């Protein structure tokens, strides 16, 4: 799990607006409410205010429980590392050590951001660990909102159909159903990630002005007669495609290329993530985590400001929320890759180098590896991934297993002892008994009777 995803997931976790837990049954039905108790023997005890008797469901009829927002959100500080286990479970935390026998991790969901102590460390036999992927420190959050209209500049847009509206703020979201503009100096860093959740009805058309210094809409058809404005990039997104063009007051309009956005017409919501690398003059668009296109401007970077302007182009009803700006390091995230057929350990470095050998230990942020040529000590900050040799994937889920999904995207598959809002007691096949903080998890999946093939 890349570090960026982890932080985003945590922020998303904090901002989640789901009101209740949801239990989904094997037949596809669902019921909202709150989990009270869960155990293999007593089933799922569920709470709702509108029932006359306590609710109790058989575990073998459950498909999953999805949790609503938690009163206490997990926090992460310092460097994070992902461990992927042989059964493809994935957990994150602070890597304490690796030796010939064990991997020791302080998972964030055991200490909830508190100081690492011996009590909340997981000691996992090294033979059960597939890979270790350090994620490094988190990235700086530059802006998060909206929390109101203050600080934003709303403007009327001259609409083709004559119907100009305005963005409205409600429940931490902006809504527009007619042509409207809203802008703010978000202090976009030179290398940035600008993200928002978008929902819509009908055919939508949104223009996002990036790195602008002008907070009012610019009519591109008559831009030369508009009040003075500095250059910016206009990312034009609709239900089917995206297009990008640099806009200056005097230069002719020049599209950098249209890209189809597959599947968008069949959806009503998406997460949009715009990655800009000003020094390299690149602008990338990710929709729901998938890179749609990265444009490269062969001219000088057109953007003269650090503001963003969001312009509803008069089509569809659009909602924007969870707007965030992060500093970015210029690298798109990659998921760690499995290398299960290795005869020796493999160290992948951030600069692309690879070292085969025997990983001796990791201690005090230093990796010791014995390669055929020499013994090396490498700072962990340079390490992208450690793959251990001679691993066999465990591709089936044992019957009666429960899989818990972490707010940060990882997961654990285990036999459940008990689960309540205050404590979860589990037996993990690869590291044994553990007690976890339930609020760290977003979902429980049930594999009641037969083992299912791993997804």
């Amino acid at each position, binding site marked *: 799990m890349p570090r960026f995803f982890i932080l985003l997931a945590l922020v998303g976790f904090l901002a989640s607006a789901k*009101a*209740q837990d949801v239990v989904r*049954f*094997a*037949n596809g*039905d*669902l*019921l*909202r*409410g709150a989990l009270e108790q869960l155990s293999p023997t007593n*089933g799922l005890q569920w709470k709702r*205010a*509108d*029932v*006359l*008797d306590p*609710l*109790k*469901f*058989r575990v073998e*009829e*459950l498909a999953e429980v999805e949790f609503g927002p938690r009163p206490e959100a997990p926090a992460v500080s310092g460097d994070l590392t992902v461990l992927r286990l042989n059964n493809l479970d994935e957990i994150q935390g602070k890597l304490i050590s690796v030796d010939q026998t064990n991997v020791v991790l302080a998972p964030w969901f055991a200490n909830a951001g508190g100081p690492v102590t011996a009590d909340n460390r997981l000691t996992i036999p090294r033979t059960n660990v597939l890979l270790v992927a350090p994620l490094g420190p988190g990235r700086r959050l530059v802006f998060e909102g909206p929390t109101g209209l203050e600080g934003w500049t709303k403007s009327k847009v001259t609409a083709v159909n004559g119907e100009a509206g305005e963005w*409205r703020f*409600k*429940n931490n979201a902006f*809504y527009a*159903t007619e042509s409207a503009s809203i802008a703010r100096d978000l202090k976009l860093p030179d290398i940035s990630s600008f993200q928002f959740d978008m929902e819509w*009805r*009908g*055919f939508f058309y949104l223009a996002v002005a990036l790195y602008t210094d002008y907070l009012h809409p610019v009519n591109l058809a008559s831009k030369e007669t508009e009040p003075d404005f500095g250059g910016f990039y206009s990312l034009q997104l609709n*239900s*089917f495609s995206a297009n990008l063009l640099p806009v200056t007051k005097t230069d002719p309009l020049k599209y950098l290329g249209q890209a189809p956005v597959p*599947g*968008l*017409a*069949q*959806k*009503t919501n998406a997460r949009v993530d715009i990655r800009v690398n000003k020094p390299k003059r690149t602008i990338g668009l990710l929709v729901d985590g998938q890179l749609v296109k990265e444009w490269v401007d062969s001219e000088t970077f057109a953007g003269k400001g650090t503001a963003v302007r969001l312009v509803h182009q008069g*089509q*569809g*009803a659009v*909602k924007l929320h969870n707007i965030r700006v992060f500093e970015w390091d210029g690298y798109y995230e990659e998921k760690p890759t499995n290398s299960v057929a290795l005869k020796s350990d493999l160290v992948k470095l951030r600069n692309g180098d690879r070292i085969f050998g025997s990983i001796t230990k990791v201690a005090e942020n230093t990796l010791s590896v014995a390669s055929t040529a020499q013994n090396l000590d490498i700072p962990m900050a340079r390490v992208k991934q450690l793959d251990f040799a001679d691993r066999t994937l465990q591709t089936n889920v044992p019957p009666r297993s429960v899989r818990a999904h972490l707010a940060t995207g990882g997961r654990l598959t285990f036999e459940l002892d008990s689960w309540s809002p205050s404590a979860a007691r589990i037996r993990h096949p690869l590291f044994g008994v553990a007690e976890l903080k339930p609020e760290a998890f977003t979902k429980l999946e049930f594999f009641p009777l037969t083992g299912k093939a791993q997804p």
Partner: protein
Amino acid sequence: MSGKLWPLITALLVAASLVAEAQTSAPAAGTNAVSRAGVLQLFDGSILHGSLDTMSPSNGLRWDFPAAEKPLRFTPTNLASVRFDTTAGAVAGARPNSRFKFKNGDDIFGDLAQVTDSQVALQTWFGSDLKAAREALHSIVFSRKGFATLYEGPTSAEGWKMGNTPRPWIYRDGVFVAQSADALGRDVGLKGSSRVEFDLAWVGSLSMSVTLYTENVSRFDYGSSSYMFYLGPGSLSLQRVQAGAGVMLLGQAQIPAMFKKNKMRLELRCNTEEGTIAAYADGQLLQKWKDQNGFVAKGTGLVFFSQMDGPSVKVSNIKVSEWDGRFENEGVTETKDDVLYLANRDKVVGNLMGVADGKVKFKASDTELQIPLERVTQIVFAPGATNQAPTAPWEVRAHFSAGETVALNLEHWDGKQFLGKSRNFGQVSFKPEAVREIHFNLDRHRLAESGSAPVDEFLELE
């Protein structure tokens, strides 16, 4: 304590115990009950397949849910609806001559027995004969052919034909869902003038067609004559497909509201004698067209064709009925008096004195008229006092399988009996097996229909 008080206290205790007994003895769980399979929906989005056991204000709604260790009992707080898997339909060949619309939203097809200065009497297929206060009535629409239902559903995929695609339409809980570009057709027996109504919901950019009077119900066929409505984002167009002559665009109508929502009820009416075709969205007339070539289609089938990929279109609550080709005249006259619409398109304003023995007695100005009922197309009653919209916790709305709907304060349901008190009809007893769906918390349904409820946050902005 004075000895004289003992008899009074004893009497009070007995009375209290009787009240308590009455409250708790209402249908004991499962006793004599006939559970009916269906789906329960709550306003928070919860959905449970199971069977309705009993309902009463004292014991709540008791729902058998297979995954639960014992039946669930809900208070009415969040109940949205119960929809049954199967329903007994109207008597085959039934042709009620009148449609009664009440001010509280009750809507009943039946036979008019009598209207007096204070009361209306009617007969229905799904319950006992009903009598209501005349002031509760909004209008009576008469059909010279009778309101015969040709098809009402879906209740399963049986009888429907789908295209040969890897991902055909699927049926679930009274709803057809398109999985890919595919046809869904049925011979619904369209013959003569007709009305086709259905609920449509979509995700993303809608693209689908609805073909009427086609001879080929398994695909779109240019080789047979039909009329095809095409629904795109914010618009609807009508094309005549004529075997051997190709396709002709007859017209288009804009539906701007489609840009801001993702569901609506469509009604398509065809008058085969006059060659006129009309489309309504959410009860509002969009457009009427006239085919100058006359009505060319000869088939009896209906085909929905989704042109989108993925589960993007849902079709439900389909009703196909015969139509006498006459349009209602609702809301066009602002008057405090009764209004009588006649077959020759005349309109008379005045006071309806009564309907009996096939004759309408009407007083216009100072003239008393006696008009044969077959010459009357519609009576719109003077606005007068309206009965209040339902608000009580157990005030439910029953939807019957032929499209009728009645609100009532539920007293008891056990699958054999459906008892309650209607604001319009007083104490009523309906056949439970005739009920297709029951709606609860009617205020919240009304808000949803009007676009004011937080069912869709975009509509909430309007």
